C-alpha cells in the first residue's frame, strides 16, 4: 500500500469537486492511500506571492508545517515524507516555498518566525512535494495502471493538456521535459486513448486573467482550443483545476468574443482513468462540466447522464442592457472605418 | 594595547597553481587587503598536513586559511578534494580540542580570482577579529608556557611530530 500525505487545495471542494470525486474513485484500484493534512488552508494560489512575500510564504508553509507534524507523529508506523497535491498551483506553491526557504535562509527564518505564532515550524527540505500525476506515473507505474484498464478508451481522441505551472520551474527535476513533457501523454496512451500530438500542452490557459483582463485570457483559451480542435481531439484532458475551469467555464464567452462556435469538453485525467477502470460517469463527477463531454464519450460507448439543463440561449439580463463587448472581428471593422 | 582593536595573525596556505597566483594577481592589480595574513606556498592544497594548521595555531596564529583550486580544476586532477576531506575532519578535531572550528577556513580561488581572494581574506580577518585571540598556553603577561607551566622563550621548543624525539 502506497501511503502519502495529501493536500487537496481549495478547488477540490468547489469548482473541481469532480476532480476530487474521480480521485477517490480510482484510489482503491491503485492501492493508494492519501492521508489528508488536518486543518489545511489555502495556498494563496497564483496572486498572493506577488503582493507580499513573507505572509504569502507563511500561508503556504503553514501547510508544510502541518504536514511535517503529521509526518513526525506517524513516524515509526510507516510514515511518509511525501506530500501529494492534485492541483498544479498548490503543487507549485508548496514546492516553491520548500525550495526558497532552503535557498534563502533569511526568508526561511522569517517564515518560521511567523509560523511560531501558531506553534508551528517547518524544516525546509523535510518533505517531498509532488503532484498526483508524478505519483501515478512514477510511483504507481504505467504498467500497474495498464493492468487495471478494463474499458480501454479506444477511439477517443484526447489532447493532453498539462498546463504551465506543473512542469516549470522544475525545482527537483521531476519531469521529462519542461516544454514538451510526455508523462500525461504516456498515461493516457496506457488507458487506450488516441493521444493527439498537442504542442501547446504547457501553454498558459490564462490563469486568473479571466478576472482581470478577460481579452487576454480569451486569446490564450482560443489558441488552446483551436489547436486541439484542428488536431481532431474529441476532448482535452488536464491535470489542473484552474485549466479545467478556464477552458470549460469561459469557452462560451470566448466563442462569443471571437465569433466562433467551438465545443471542446475538458476533463480531468483522473476522470478518464476512472472510465478506463470501468467506473461509471456519475461516480467520477462526469456530467457536471459546462461544455458537455456527452458526445465525446459516446465514442467509447459511455453514456453521460444529464445532470443539468443544457445551457440554452443566454437569459436576458434584467435591468438596463449593457453594451456588448467588441469581438475581434468587429474591432477590425471599426478600425477600417 | 587594550584600546586598540585586536589584530589577529593569520597563516594562509596557498596552492602554487591557483591561489598563490591569485595573491600575485591581487598584488599586480594593487588591490588592498588586511595585512594580518601571511602566506605559505604549497604545491597543492592536498599537501596540507593538518599538523601544519595545528602547528600554526599552537605557535601564535589566531586563524588559518586554506586555499586551493576550485573543485574540478585541480592541477593534480583531484587532490583538492582530499584537502576538502581533511579540512572537514580537521574541523571536528579542532572542536574536540576546544578550538573554535571557525578559526580554520577553506576557500577555493582560481588564479584569475584575485578579487575573490582579497574579499575572502578581508572577511576572514573580520571573522577572526570577532572570535578574539586564541590565547592558549599564555599567561596574563602573554608569555608562552609549556605543559608544566615553565616559561618558553620561542617556538623552537616545538618539534615536528615526525622528528625523532631526543632521548
Amino acid at each position, binding site marked *: 500500500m502506497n501511503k502519502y500525505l495529501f493536500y487537496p487545495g481549495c478547488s477540490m471542494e468547489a469548482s473541481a469537486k469532480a476532480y476530487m470525486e474521480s480521485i477517490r474513485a480510482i484510489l482503491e484500484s491503485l492501492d493508494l492511500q492519501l492521508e489528508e493534512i488536518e486543518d489545511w488552508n489555502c495556498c494563496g494560489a497564483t496572486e498572493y506571492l506577488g503582493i507580499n512575500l513573507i505572509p504569502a510564504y507563511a500561508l503556504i508553509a503553514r501547510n508544510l508545517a502541518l504536514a511535517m507534524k503529521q509526518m513526525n507523529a506517524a513516524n515509526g508506523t510507516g510514515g511518509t515524507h511525501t506530500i501529494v497535491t492534485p492541483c498544479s498551483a498548490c503543487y507549485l506553491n508548496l514546492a516553491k516555498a520548500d525550495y526558497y526557504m532552503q535557498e534563502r535562509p533569511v526568508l526561511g527564518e522569517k517564515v518560521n518566525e511567523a509560523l511560531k505564532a501558531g506553534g508551528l515550524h517547518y524544516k525546509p527540505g523535510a518533505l517531498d512535494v509532488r503532484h498526483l500525476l508524478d505519483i501515478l506515473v512514477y510511483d504507481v507505474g504505467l504498467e500497474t495502471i495498464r493492468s487495471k484498464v478494463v474499458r480501454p478508451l479506444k477511439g477517443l481522441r484526447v489532447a493532453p493538456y498539462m498546463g504551465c505551472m506543473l512542469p516549470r520551474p522544475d525545482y527537483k527535476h521531476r519531469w521529462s521535459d*519542461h516544454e*514538451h513533457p510526455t508523462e500525461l501523454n504516456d498515461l493516457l496512451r496506457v488507458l487506450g486513448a488516441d493521444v493527439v*500530438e498537442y*504542442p*501547446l500542452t504547457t501553454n498558459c490557459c490564462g490563469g486568473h486573467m479571466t478576472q482581470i483582463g478577460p481579452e487576454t485570457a480569451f486569446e490564450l483559451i482560443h*489558441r488552446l482550443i483551436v*489547436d486541439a480542435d484542428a488536431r481532431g481531439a474529441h476532448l482535452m484532458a488536464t491535470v489542473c483545476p484552474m485549466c479545467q475551469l478556464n477552458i470549460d467555464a469561459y469557452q462560451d464567452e470566448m466563442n462569443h468574443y471571437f465569433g466562433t462556435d467551438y465545443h471542446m469538453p475538458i476533463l480531468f485525467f483522473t476522470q478518464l482513468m476512472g472510465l478506463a477502470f470501468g467506473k461509471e460517469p456519475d461516480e467520477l463527477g462526469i456530467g457536471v462540466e459546462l461544455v458537455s463531454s456527452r458526445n465525446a464519450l459516446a465514442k467509447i460507448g459511455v453514456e453521460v447522464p444529464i445532470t443539468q439543463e443544457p445551457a440554452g440561449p443566454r437569459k436576458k439580463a434584467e435591468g438596463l442592457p449593457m453594451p456588448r463587448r467588441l469581438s475581434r472581428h468587429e474591432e477590425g471593422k471599426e478600425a477600417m472605418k | *594595547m587594550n584600546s586598540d582593536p585586536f589584530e589577529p*595573525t593569520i*597563516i594562509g596556505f596557498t596552492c602554487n597553481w591557483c591561489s*598563490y*597566483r591569485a*595573491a*600575485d594577481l*591581487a*598584488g*599586480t592589480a*594593487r588591490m*588592498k*587587503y588586511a*595585512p594580518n595574513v*601571511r*602566506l*605559505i*606556498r*604549497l*604545491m*597543492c592544497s*592536498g*599537501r*596540507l*598536513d*593538518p599538523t*601544519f594548521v595545528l*602547528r*600554526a595555531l599552537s*605557535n*601564535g*596564529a589566531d586563524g588559518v586559511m586554506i586555499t586551493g583550486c*576550485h573543485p*574540478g*580544476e*585541480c*592541477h*593534480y*586532477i*583531484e*587532490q583538492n578534494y*582530499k584537502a576538502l576531506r*581533511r579540512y572537514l575532519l580537521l574541523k571536528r578535531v579542532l572542536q574536540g580540542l576546544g578550538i573554535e572550528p571557525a578559526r580554520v577556513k577553506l576557500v577555493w580561488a582560481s588564479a584569475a580570482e584575485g578579487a575573490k581572494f*582579497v574579499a575572502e581574506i578581508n572577511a576572514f580577518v573580520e571573522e577572526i577579529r570577532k572570535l578574539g585571540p586564541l590565547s592558549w598556553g599564555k599567561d596574563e*603577561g602573554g*608569555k*608562552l608556557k609549556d605543559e608544566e607551566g615553565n616559561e618558553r622563550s*620561542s*617556538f*623552537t621548543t616545538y618539534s*615536528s*611530530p*615526525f622528528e625523532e624525539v631526543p632521548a
Partner: protein
Amino acid sequence: MTEKKQERVGVYVCHCGTNIAGMVDVEELAKWSAEKLGHQGVVIARDYKFMCSSLGQELIEKDIRELGLTRVVVAACSPHLHEKTFRTAAQKAGLNPYLVELASIREQVSWVHTDRVVATEKAKAVVAGAVSRVIENEPLEEIKVPINPNTLIVGGGIAGIQAALEIANAGFHVYLVEREPSIGGHMAQFDKTFPTLDCAACILTPRMVEVGTHPNITLLTWSEVVNVSGYVGNFNVTIKKKARFINEELCTGCGVCEEKCPKKVIDEVFEAGIGYRKAVYIPFAQAVPKFPVIDKENCTYFIKGTCKACEKFCPTGAIDFKQEDQLINIEVGNIILATGYDLFDARRVSNYGYGRFPNVFTSLEFERLSNAAGPTNGNIVLRDGKTVPKSVGIIHCVGSRDRNFNNYCSVICCMQSLKFAHLVHERTGATVYNFYIDMRTASKAYDEFYQRVLEEGTLFVRGKVAEVTDVARDEHEKGKLIIQVEDTLIGKQRRIPVDMVILSVGLQPRHDAKEVGRLFGISCSTDGWFTEKHPKLDPVATMTEGIFIAGCAQGPKDIPSSVAQGAAAAARVLDKILQKEVALEPIKASVDQKKCSGCRICNGLCPFNAISYIADDNISYINPALCQGCGTCVAACPSGAISGTGFSDAQILAQIDGLLLRTLEVEQATA
C-alpha cells in the same frame, strides 16, 4: 634547529625602485634581519635598488663566494617571476640553486598594504619565514630522463592530421590512432568552409592521402587507446585495433562488397542520420584508408548466420569473418590528444522541435544536405526529399550561451550560420532569416563575409528564439513552421513562418572526454574540455609532461585555429624529441623504506599512479618520473615515511614558525 645546522644565510632586500621601498622600510628590514635573525644563521643582510639587475645578482654571487654563504633569501617579488633568475645566479657562484628562497614582499606586502609601519612589520615576518625555511632546504638536482622519439597522436581530424604530418615530415615516427574507420574527422563531412567557401574535401583529402602513404606514419583506424602507463619520454601505450573483418593485406578497396551487401542501415555517423550506408561500408568515397568495415551489429551474417554476399563477390578473398580485436603495444615519448568534439543534442531544446518536426534540421544534417557527395547530391530540400524550401530560418546559439545547457560560446556557429545562409540563398533563392543573439565574426576575413551575406539579402533578426511551432494562428502560418522570437532591435514579438529550420547547434566535449582525460592523466575544465597548461601562454601543453592537446578537444574552435594548434603541438613535441632528454623538476615525494609500514594508505591517493606497492618487501614505492610533486601522499602518510623534496615537513613547519616569530616577539615586547 638553527644551532645544530650552522648554516650561513644571506638576506637580500630588493627596493624594486619604489615598488617595495615606497611602502616597506627596506633599510630597517635589512638591519632587523641581520640583528634579530643572526641567531638563525643570518650572516649578512643587504638592501639594493634592483636585486634582479646584473649588479644585484653579482652582489649575491660575490657574497656566496667571499662570505661562504650556504643559503640565500631574496626578499623581492613573487617566485613565479624571478625565482629562476636568482637560482641561476646562485648556481653560477657554486651554490645549489635549490638553496635559494624568495620572500615575496612586493605582491604580498608593498603592493597590497597601505600602512608603512604595518607593511614593514609584515615584511619582517615574511623574511623570517623564508629564513627559517631556507635553512631546511636541501640541495636538489634536476632529474633527467631520455625521450623516445616516437609520438602517439590520438584523433585523425584536421588537428591530428596536421600534427602528424609536421612530425613525420621532420623525420620522426608517428602513430596516428583514429576511432572511426577513416581519418578526416568532422571536416570531411562539411561541404564548404567559411569564409573563403573552399570545398572542404578539396583541401582536406590531399592531406589525408599524405597521412595514409607517409613512410613515417603508422595509421591505426578503427582503433582506440585502452591503456597508458609510463611518463614523459617513456610512455607505454596499448591500442585496441577493432576487428574490421577485412584482411587489410588483401583488400584493394574496390568497393564491390559494399555494392553487393543487401543490408542498408541509416548512417548515424558520417551522414549525420540523413543518409544510408550498407552493413559493410567505406564511410565516404575519399576515405583513408580505403578499407571497408563490417558493422557487426547490422550484418546479416552476424545476426542470422547466413548471407556472406560480400565474401562471395570479393575478388581478392579479403573478407574475414573470423577476425578478432587485436591489442597492440607501442612505446612513445610524447602524446598529442586531438580527439575533437561532439555536437550538442538538439533534442534537448525541446521547444525548437528537433525530432518532432521533420523539417527542423541540425547544422551537421544541413552540411550533408548541401554536400554534393551527400544523400541529396547537394540539393537543399525538405525531409520529403524533393520540396525546395521557399523560406529558411537559421537559429544561432542552440545549446550555447544558455544557462540551461552550455554557458560558453561555441565559436563557430555564427560563421557556420552565415555560410548556410549564403548556400541556401545561392542554391534555392529562398528567403533566409538568421536569428542571432550577438554576431561574432572575429577573425581574419570573417566580418567581410558577414557583410557579403548581409548584402545578399539575408534577413537578420536579433533575439533568442522562444520556440518553433506548427500551431498556426492565422492562414498564412498554416502548414509552416513558425519561429516565435522577440526581435530585440524593434522590441516586438515576431512570428515568422518558414518551410525549413536549421539549428546551429553548439560544440560539446566528447561524451567520454573525462574517461579519456583520466586514461592519459590530464584534467578537464568545468565544461569538460581538456585543460591546457596556461590559457594564453601554453595553450597546447597540459599539466602532465609529455601530453599535449590540439584542436576542439581543448575548446571550441574553427579550422584555422585547429590546424594552428595541431602544428603548435607538433612543434612542442619536436622540441622535446630534439632535446633527447628531459629535465624534470626535482619536487618529488619519496618513501623512507625504514619507516614505511606497508599500510598502503598512500597507494590510492595518487592520481598519476606513481605509487606502487612492493609486496615482497611490504613497502610502497614512488616512481620519481611519474610523481608530479603535489605532496598529497606526504601529508597522508601516518608513519611520516614519505617526504617531499622542496616542500618537506621540516621546511613548511619552519616557515610557519618563522612567520609567527615576529608575532611572538611583539607580544613579548609589549607584555
